[in-house]
């Protein structure tokens, strides 16, 4: 297949499929469209991976028409944002959309006729990694949404389905993400960037409740801050070099009179997209949307667009003070969000804070910009997408069954929903247990950070990273512990039956989590090392181990130990018949019941509760302070970038 066709399929076919979903209001046809589109996207991603790296310049005629089209759409989207601001009487949204409309008009008037940056599209290994993540994990989420949205609308009691609209934005989102990671011309990138903001806004407000509208508006204005910064960077670059290519930017960032300022502005845009402190609010608010939206935002799209841009810019900040400040910022975000996650009892908030923390870690690793650390960043981007996609989908399935997303309501969930509990537990374990991917990435990061050049920065970053890692373990284990707590004597319940649209994505991602832990070495060789864009000095993947210049981790022996001693016994449990006794309660047990004789021999039911550090007040105080510190760090980063 022609390269151009492949790119066009990746970017435009989801849009077409989305429109089809929106226009045809027949359910079976819609489902068929979604399934076919999901398969098509996965196939295209696979093909692109097989094609390997290439560059593509649109021919002038097509390029010009494309530019016209995106200019019109740019203005349309921005005007829409402006009217949203006016309609909701939100001054910030109005100002921020004006803050883009005016510069964009200036930009188009001054450089509108200049030829676009060449090449238009660069497919390198980092782009391929992102394409694989977006289209494989993203498509699975779309499939999951088929069943989930039925449950969701049934639960809401809608008479007229709003799914056509939902799948339109969901699929357009995937197309925009594909465009975003493929574009080298920053004007194109900016268009896709704003399109993701737009889709995100539409998806968050999908349920049209007051809370959904408020939170969607918050997501909108926070991302518009990023949009303004993005456009400011484009203006600066246009003035300085007249070129709007992403590759040129990273190649000659430091040399120009403005120094790192454009890079700094683009980083700010990336931080807002990745919901880094002080922008964390929008991602936390986004959980009012149906679960597939959260799954998509957290795993394969939106927030990953931010860290993707940071990874692209990493080369430009190498060795600068700005890079060091950004690294400290990322480490800081990791710690405060991990601590905040300790205090939350809402499963989706815990997942959201964990996402922000992991993105902080990715940003930290990218900013350090050694072979090792960038490898850690790419690995974490891949594994985080898989694990988080899995976790959000399983929590969503649990939520639609028990009607709650509170961890406390998942007490003893294993007795009620063994399959969903097993999936969630394995997903959570994959975030903290060796040799699963997320932990392996963390290990590579820990090996990379202390070797960071500027020693005055290396020490605080190491300290923050260590603290963050320790706290992370606690909130995951607490949660797993709540789900697995079961009575000693109980009747065997059959495994719950879910629709294939639930089971297939969950099972596939679960297999991916386990298989990629086993196949981390080939993954490193095929995807990660080439995506670093430099020789893999300091990092190599053996058959059964990953070796850095300063250490080594044998993954296979670890996996064998884990499988033989933990997984297999856990899965074989049903066959084993050992005498069971109820738990010790000082001899005050009431038969086999989870109850005991209390005061005046009254029966008292045994109840358990999880432990959450601090209270609502503590958390809000923590977030206030971290917002202040986060803003301060960003100001410092701007100051050192000049």
């Amino acid at each position: 297949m022609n390269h151009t066709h492949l790119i066009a399929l990746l970017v435009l076919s989801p849009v077409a499929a989305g429109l089809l979903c929106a226009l045809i209001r027949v359910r079976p046809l819609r489902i068929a469209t979604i399934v076919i589109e999901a398969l098509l996207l996965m196939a295209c991603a696979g093909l692109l991976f097989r094609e390997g790296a290439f560059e593509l310049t649109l021919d002038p005629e097509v390029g010009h028409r494309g530019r016209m089209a995106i200019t019109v759409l740019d203005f349309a989207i921005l005007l829409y944002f402006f009217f949203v601001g006016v309609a909701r009487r939100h001054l910030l949204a109005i100002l921020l959309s004006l803050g883009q409309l005016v510069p964009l008009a200036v930009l188009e008037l001054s450089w509108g006729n200049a030829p676009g940056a060449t090449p238009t599209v660069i497919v390198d290994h980092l782009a391929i990694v992102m394409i694989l993540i977006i289209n494989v994990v993203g498509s699975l989420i779309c499939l999951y949404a088929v069943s989930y949205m039925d449950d969701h609308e049934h639960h809401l009691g809608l008479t007229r389905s709003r799914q056509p609209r939902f799948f339109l934005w969901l699929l357009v989102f995937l197309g925009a993400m594909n465009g975003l990671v493929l574009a080298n011309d920053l004007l194109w990138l900016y268009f896709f960037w704003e399109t993701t903001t737009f889709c995100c806004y539409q998806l968050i407000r999908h349920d049209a409740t007051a809370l959904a509208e408020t939170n969607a508006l918050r997501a909108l204005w926070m991302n518009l801050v990023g949009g303004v910064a993005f456009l400011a960077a484009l203006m600066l670059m246009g003035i300085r070099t007249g070129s709007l290519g992403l590759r040129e930017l990273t190649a000659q960032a430091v040399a120009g009179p403005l120094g790192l300022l454009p890079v700094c502005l683009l980083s700010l845009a990336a931080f807002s997209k990745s919901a880094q402190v002080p922008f964390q609010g929008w991602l936390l608010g986004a959980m009012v949307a149906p679960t597939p939206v959260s799954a998509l935002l957290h795993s394969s799209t939106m927030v990953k667009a931010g860290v993707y841009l940071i990874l692209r810019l990493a080369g430009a900040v190498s060795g600068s003070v700005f890079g060091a400040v950004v690294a400290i910022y990322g480490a800081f975000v990791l710690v405060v969000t991990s601590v905040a996650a300790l205090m939350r009892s809402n499963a989706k908030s815990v997942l959201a804070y964990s996402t922000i923390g992991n993105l902080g870690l990715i940003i930290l690793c990218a900013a350090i910009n050694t072979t090792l650390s960038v490898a850690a960043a790419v690995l974490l981007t891949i594994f985080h997408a898989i694990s988080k996609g899995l976790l959000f989908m399983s929590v969503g399935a649990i939520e639609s069954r028990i009607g709650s997303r509170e961890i406390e309501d998942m007490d003893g969930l294993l007795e009620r929903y063994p399959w969903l509990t097993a999936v969630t537990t394995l997903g959570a374990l994959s975030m903290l247990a060796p040799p699963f991917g997320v932990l392996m990435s963390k290990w590579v990061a820990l090996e990379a950070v202390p070797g960071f050049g500027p020693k005055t920065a290396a020490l605080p970053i190491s300290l923050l990273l260590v603290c963050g890692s320790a706290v992370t373990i606690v909130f995951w284990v607490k949660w797993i512990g709540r789900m697995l707590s079961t009575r000693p004597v109980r009747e065997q319940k059959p495994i719950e039956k879910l629709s294939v649209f639930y089971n297939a994505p969950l099972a596939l991602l679960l297999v991916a989590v386990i298989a990629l832990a086993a196949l981390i070495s080939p993954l490193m060789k095929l995807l990660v090392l080439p995506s670093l864009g430099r020789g893999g000095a300091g990092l190599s993947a053996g058959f059964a181990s990953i070796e850095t210049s300063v250490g080594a981790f044998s993954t296979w022996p670890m996996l064998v130990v884990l499988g033989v001693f933990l997984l297999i016994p856990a899965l074989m449990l049903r066959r084993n018949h050992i005498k069971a006794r109820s738990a010790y309660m000082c001899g005050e047990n009431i038969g086999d019941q989870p109850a005991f004789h209390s005061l005046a021999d009254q029966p008292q039911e045994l109840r358990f509760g999880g432990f959450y550090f601090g209270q609502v007040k503590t958390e809000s105080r923590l977030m206030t302070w971290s917002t202040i510190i986060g803003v301060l760090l960003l100001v410092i980063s701007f100051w050192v970038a000049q």
Partner: protein
Amino acid sequence: MNSIPFDTLLKVALALVLAPICGGLLTGLDRILTARLQGRLGPPLLQPFFDLIKLFGKEPITSNRLQRAFIWGHLAMTMTSLGLLVMLDDLLALTIILGFASVCLVLAGFAVRSPYSYFGAQRELMVLLSCEPILLLFAIAYYLDTGSFLASSALALKTPLLAALPLAYLGLVVALAMKTRKSPFDVSTSHHAHQELVKGVTTELSGRYLAMAELAQWYELTVLLGLIALFWPRPLWVGVLLALVSYLALILLDNASARLTWRWMVRTSWSVAVSAIVLNMIGLYILRR
């Protein structure tokens, strides 16, 4: 990958056999010393082994099925970390695996709907929260001194590690006290009678599963003492002596102090022990410049 040479495998096998013997003997010694300090005669030195054998012979009874898998995992992970130490492998990897071994124990405690076990698990998690930063920072301080995370590089140093990392050593001893549940850090379970939560995280373990948890303790003790021995590996007997003296000091501390709260433990660890190691690292930076 480079195939692991036969003699390394032999060494690992030997260590896996010898470590519980060392751990058991040290536990026996601990019990005798503690008894003498309390004015009792105490059990024979080999009592821990007798206990262990007896436990293995008991009829298996369980109050939770899942718990057994986690106990298996706990023991296997601890043994793996010992294997890494003997192979002089990556200290960061070792720390992470040792941490996950504790996670398994915590989950074994959480798995049962028993108030005592549940509390114990909660507190064991706090022990983990207190130990993890110390151990990880120790590994990083080790890297700053030797330029590598591999345990083998300590052997190549001209001056022993202790000279460069005295405060990190102290931090590691604090972690040892927490991991071996010595007062004032014995919050999750304790060998002393003053523990009010029955037997804490191990309350619901019996028979061979209790024996396996005990065995894992012995392995863990050996691993941590091995890490301390790394501070003076040439000649090795000095390192071993250092480890033994540290452990003896902890036994004395155990009998001289009361159990304090987990809040105090987390605070102490995150403030005193962590800053000790960080100070040590700052010192290294300044001296090495």
